[in-house]
């Protein structure tokens, strides 16, 4: 077992290093900007004073590595600097309330999508090449091909027009959970539909790959019931591939959140990011990019750890 903990510690360390490098990229990308950063942000019409003010604020006169470690030091303590667009407002203030909303939406969608996709994926794999499989496959392929906003607007057109659900997912302060679930239903459903298709196809591929292994044939030839072959022989070996499929798709969900939040005017990080990009509010964009990247890295890390723990080859070795 000690070996496993060491492996997991290694993965964690690797995750931390990745995040560190990602933070360098996210911070360093601004250095790629040709010419003067403050000038570029404010545009040609900016006055000399405002340019100077930004330069002071961002300590642009200091060498880049000092500014980076200043920034990183702040980030570790939850301080992402101040916004450029809303002068003087701390970025962490702007992010904090929206962070919760985005996570709420992502978890909401994941809670619907993961069980649905895994069930469908396994069923389709079992009944492969049946009519059900073909239809499910073509439908999933189409769903993958739809841009998120298309799915979102179709849902609005069908469900919101008829008055079942609100098309604007504004979150009033103090709303209880039921209210929140109701208001966020359409954005969550959009994400679910898009992610489920991907996840189902990948689950199907993973399971079919597994079912062609000789040890599955062996289990059949030992006269085991089909249900036992699946549950006892296939599933324990399917944990790793399925964990990977789920991680990849939850990570994909993070990207999807941005567009969906904009469509439904949902007060989350994605919408803030889009607004900040058009205002070129770089500290905010950096902060949100780092949060999304961190979530992405952590998800993959988690899948890695689960795969390790589910593999007896790695657990028991002499």
């Amino acid at each position, binding site marked *: 077992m000690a070996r496993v903990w060491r492996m997991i510690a290694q993965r964690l360390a690797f995750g931390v290093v990745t995040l560190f490098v990602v933070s360098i990229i996210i911070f360093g990308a601004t250095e790629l900007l040709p010419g003067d950063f403050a000038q570029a942000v404010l545009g040609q019409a900016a006055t000399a004073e405002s340019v100077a003010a930004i330069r002071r604020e961002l300590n642009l006169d200091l060498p880049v590595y000092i500014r980076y470690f200043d920034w990183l030091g702040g980030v570790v303590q939850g301080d992402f600097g101040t916004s450029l667009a809303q002068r003087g407002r701390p970025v962490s203030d702007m992010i904090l309330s929206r962070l919760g909303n985005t996570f709420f939406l992502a978890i909401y969608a994941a809670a619907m999508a993961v069980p649905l996709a895994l069930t469908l994926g396994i069923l389709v794999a079992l009944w492969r090449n049946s009519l059900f499989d073909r239809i499910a496959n073509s439908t999933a392929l189409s769903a993958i091909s739809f841009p998120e906003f298309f799915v979102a607007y179709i849902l609005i057109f069908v469900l919101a027009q008829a008055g079942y659900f609100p098309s604007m997912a504004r979150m009033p302060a103090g709303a209880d959970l039921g209210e929140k679930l109701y208001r966020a239903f359409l954005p969550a459903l959009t994400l679910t539909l898009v992610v489920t298709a991907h996840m189902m196809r990948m689950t199907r591929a993973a399971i079919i790959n597994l079912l062609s292994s000789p040890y599955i044939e062996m289990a059949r030839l030992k006269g085991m019931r089909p249900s036992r072959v699946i549950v006892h022989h296939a599933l324990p*070996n399917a944990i790793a591939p399925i964990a990977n499929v789920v991680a990849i798709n939850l990570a994909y969900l993070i990207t999807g959140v941005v567009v969906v939040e904009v469509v439904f005017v949902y007060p989350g990080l994605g919408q803030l990011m889009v607004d900040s990009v058009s205002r070129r509010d770089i500290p905010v964009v950096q902060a949100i990019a780092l949060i999304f990247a961190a979530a992405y890295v952590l998800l993959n890390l988690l899948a890695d750890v689960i795969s390790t723990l589910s593999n007896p*080859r790695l657990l028991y070795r002499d």
Partner: protein
Amino acid sequence: MSTQDVLLSIRDLKIEGKSGDDWLPIVNGVDLTLHRGEVLGLIGESGAGKSTIGLAAMGFARDGCRISGGTIDFDGIDLRRASREQLRRLHGKRIAYVAQSAAASFNPAHRLMEQYCEAPVRHGVMSRSEAERDAVDLYRKIRLPDPEGIGFRYPHQVSGGQLQRAMTAMAMSCRPDLIIFDEPTTALDVTTQIEVLAAIRDIVEQFGTAAIYITHDLAVVAQMADRIKILLRGDEIEEADTREMLAAPKHDYTRSLWAVRAFQRPEQPAPKGAPVVSLRNVSASYGKVPVLDNISFDIHPRRTVAVVGESGSGKSTAARVITGLLPPTRGEVLFEGDALPPDYRKRTREQLRNAQMIYQMADTALNPKLPIRRIIGRPAQMYLGLNGRALTERIRELLHLIELEPDEYIDRLPSELSGGQKQRIGIARALAAEPRFIICDEVTSALDQIVAEGILRLLDRLQGAFDLAYMFITHDLATVRAIADDVVVMQKGRVVEQGPKPEMFAPPHEPYTELLLSSVPEMDPDWLSRLLEERRHKDLPQGAEK
């Protein structure tokens, strides 16, 4: 034997396999009768349909295959008409299966004991604790080390030969009436194979179980089977009692299978002059793992040095050192007396040209997207500067040499050739460089015996015609007997013994050479019994494993 004793009766069995949108026949009307307690050997080369028939005897067809005709009667039950549920109740309980690769056929997620107990408990034959006691008992009978503890290991913690024995024990767990052995020793080294063969034979005899033993190796089946049935491309060639079949094969095809073993090239005169290639105290390692330890041998012109050893012996690594793919950590490789640069990238074109290589898998050795013309032509163009008409002439000449009709083959792709033809193209490519020395890496082990023999004869002829020196890497002692002048025996990265062939095949031997030589199955039904008896007396190691 009376008809009452018939356990399995297959009549006019037809099986088809899916190819594109069409179903093509794999087995065309085979009959098979098996009595209780009898072992039937099914023999055939690749594509003969023997595994498919083995599975059909269980009423099972793999994905992409279907049983399209005939009857399969197992102890009064029509397996083609039986419901899935009926079949399920038979499988594992009354008919069991032992697969070719135990490593892949054991579920990696469960311990051996768990998998052993599954069939007896689920089929309601024994309780879990009874099954566990029974497992230890069988593990002991089958001479697995640590019979009490081995069941609590995961498959990856157990070696290949032991896994194959554990799988045989598992098949026996419900004391079935019939076990199908599907090439159970094909993936194993010879010294390991002995143990598995002995274990299978013991246990089958002890419980009086009927078995179908599928293999491509005649000598192996001679040890195991009471009767032998020979198949060729889905048709039965002949069937007879083992001794009768070995003594007097009736059919031409069967006789040709026997004759393969008869090829032996005449003894060559003693080497004269300097060796073409010499290894001097070569050691090498992959990363930190040492794989070659201080090996030295010479290869003379017009002579064939066979480098023999089991997997992991370092024989292929020696080839990689000679070609410069793996620079040695110590020692050097000499070509006609001069040291070669250790890394192939540092070698001159002339040095590269003089040492060519022929690979084991012709499928991966020929670029599937290039026509034969390009494959053979490129070395001639590169090294000898041939172009245009002269190049085409040379390619045609080379195709003649390897006995392929130039007009027919010159513009084909490798996928349009048979296995033996591909290997011939590999030979032509090596010849095109007009080398002094060729490394043949297991060139016949992926081929059926008759095809392999053709390749050996061709190589022999070419050696005489072009004064070539061969280094022949192989694990198969029959091949060594057929073509070697000198033999180098390797084990775990060292040279155990070397010398001219006649000396090597005559006693006294080093213990490992002795083990290796004595482990090669012979075409004598009593060979295995005799060998085991001898070993028990001499107290020789019971196998290379552990």
